[in-house]
């Protein structure tokens, strides 16, 4: 992409702190030559975590690949809000095919580039949690085990938001969705075993797996940059709160993502070839209750009586994450 002037007002709050850093340490978003891969004017809701996450991920990947990048996108909010014909918010080579095949389309792109000797062009696949952990799981696993040279990014907002907030395999226990309503003796989603796709990716021994959230955008950029230094299948799982589906204010997206991390419910870590190599420690631990209470999807837990039993089970999940990844510095 050619140089594109970005007005100062668009460059975001990170730019101020960045002035104190050496140029190479400054964020991608603070760089006026950033791609603006997902440009303004798209139709995402206010406070959409996915739009924010995708912009940071793709701009970082574009800088890391020197603008030589192609993206395959699954069906979902990200595709719908960005490309209502004849408009497109993408300033990158971008393709949408189907809901469940983004990893395979990315494989096809990578195979074509390899056959043509275009080793300079990198491939990114992306989708929401429905497109990734549910309907796209087979294609994703195939992409992993074959060793295809693709960075796949899942923007996880923990339900099928595009179709009206139905449960997905990434929906957490007790959460209310349109298909796990807050009615009956056990309201909300079931307490299943969950589908931990970062760990499933690690079980494929792929070169790089990382989790991140939109609460720490510099960490997100750094993980994309790290992923882009590697080849082969890489997986990035980004927690992106959805104000509509989670029942939070548009202004709370970052705060809720931070509480997910600080409570231990969403562990942020990196892994290479199946082994955890770094974790983002919890800076100030909060009870899961503090994460649940602001979200209307958990409102049924805080009625009369308060479902302390359910909240305790969710706390157990957080505690297990904390122990598994050593998220509390003191605990280890």
């Amino acid at each position, binding site marked *: *992409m050619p140089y594109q002037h970005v007005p100062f007002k668009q460059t975001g709050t990170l730019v101020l702190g960045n002035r104190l850093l050496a140029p190479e340490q400054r964020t991608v978003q603070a760089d006026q030559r950033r791609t603006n891969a997902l440009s303004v004017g798209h139709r995402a809701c206010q406070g959409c975590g996915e739009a924010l996450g995708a912009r940071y991920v793709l701009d970082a990947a574009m800088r890391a690949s020197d*603008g*030589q*990048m*192609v993206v*395959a*996108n699954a069906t979902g909010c990200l*595709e*719908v809000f960005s*490309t*209502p*014909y*004849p*408009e*497109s918010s*993408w*300033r*990158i*080579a*971008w*393709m*949408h*095919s*189907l809901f*469940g*095949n983004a990893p*395979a*389309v*990315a*494989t*096809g*792109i*990578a*195979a*074509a*580039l*390899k*056959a*043509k*000797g275009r080793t300079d*062009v990198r491939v990114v696949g992306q989708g929401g949690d429905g497109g990734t952990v549910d309907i796209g799981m*087979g*294609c994703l*696993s*195939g992409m992993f085990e*074959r060793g295809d040279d693709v960075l796949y990014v899942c923007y996880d907002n923990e339900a099928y938001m595009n179709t009206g907030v139905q449960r997905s395999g990434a929906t957490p226990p007790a959460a209310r969705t349109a298909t796990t309503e807050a009615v009956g003796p056990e309201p909300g989603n079931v307490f299943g075993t969950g589908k931990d796709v970062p760990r499933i990716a690690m079980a494929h021994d792929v070169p790089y797996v990382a989790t991140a959230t939109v609460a720490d955008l510099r960490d997100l950029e750094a993980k994309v940059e790290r992923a882009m230094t590697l080849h082969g299948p890489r997986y990035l799982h980004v927690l992106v709160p959805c104000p509509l589906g989670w029942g939070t204010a548009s202004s709370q997206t970052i705060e809720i993502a931070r509480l997910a991390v600080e409570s231990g419910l969403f562990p942020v870590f990196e892994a290479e070839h199946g082994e955890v190599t770094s974790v983002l420690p919890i800076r100030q631990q909060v009870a899961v209750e503090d994460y649940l209470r602001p979200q209307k999807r958990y409102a049924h837990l805080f009625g009369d009586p308060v479902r302390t039993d359910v909240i305790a089970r969710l706390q157990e999940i957080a505690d297990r994450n904390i122990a598994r990844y050593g998220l509390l510095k003191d605990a280890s």
Partner: protein
Amino acid sequence: MLQQVEGSQAVAETVAACRPEVICAYPISPQTHIVEALSRLVKSGELTNCEYVTVESEFAAMSVAIGASATGARAYTATASQGLLYMAEALFNASGLGLPIVMTVANRAIGAPINIWNDHSDAMSMRDSGWLQLYAEDNQEAADLHVQAFRIAESLSLPVMVCMDGFVLTHAVERVDLPEQDAVDAFLPAYEPRQVLDPAEPYSIGAMVGPEAFTEVRYLAHLRQLDALTAIPEVADDFSRRFGRTSGGLVRPYRLDDAETVVVALGSVLGTIKDTVDQLRDDGERIGVLGITTFRPFPAEAVRKALRDATRVVVVDRALAAGMGGVVGADVRVALAEESMRVYDVVAGLGGRPITKASLHTMLRAAVTDTLPPLSFLDLDTNVVEEQRHPAGRRPDRP
């Protein structure tokens, strides 16, 4: 080069001569020998600049082909039966996106009940997927159609299915003149995509289209299919000039002059039908055959022209639209809507049941005397049907 070769091997070597850049493969009988042979050609280095991707499903196979084709690579895959159904969603996507993927369909029945043998149920179920469908009569044509398919697909930006009868053709060893590399190179120019995923010129491919333009998009898809009715015979003519034999095209008439009765069919059964028709001709019947090579787009005008002087038309259908009748027969009736001849639909050879000359002879004898019902099933065992409909001990009227 003339060779005594298995149909699958002939197709694989011909596809290789078309220099595909990405081949995706997921095994299903009776397609396996094709992708196995291509795997050997890539692995041994005989086919270069080609990525061979073994995928985890047919849905992934078509999806990989979609990504590769959108990146400007010549993409190929092969499947059959359940596999074709499993990639159904991606089939419609490939045609909607105008990606010139070429795919062999080794025609096989679809279940339940599971059945690995030949009929046309698979391809017929995808007749409205937006893919062009070409049907090979023998292995020579199966090989030749692939060379033509890439050129047709790329000139129209539409995907093409080359349908060849599973086992009957894929596993049959016969003499095939394999297209030579130089001749294929001269016939098939390098793929120049109209729109490609390229960072230097970033397009958004696959946007969402709402009610304000969706009808127009679909209408344009229809027009491109109709364009194929001109392109396919042109490509076949050019092929004939360069390779010195006739393959492809829209329809293939056989002994139609003065024919009162015309048998219409697709695929390898045409050989048996022609032999039977020759016998009936010897007996003095005025009978001929119309082979349909291009089923999608349906060459309605060519079919009408070929059949307009007939008194009766017998369509031999290798697939059944349950609750309706023959699939090809329905389209033939539409093509003949303005004509007055009788049309008989004969569903035959389902799930690999052989279509014998004896059975065809008996059926056509009934046809020429107009004693054939409008829809019939060749060699139907009525005893089995009755037993299943009214199992012993559960007959409602048994005293």
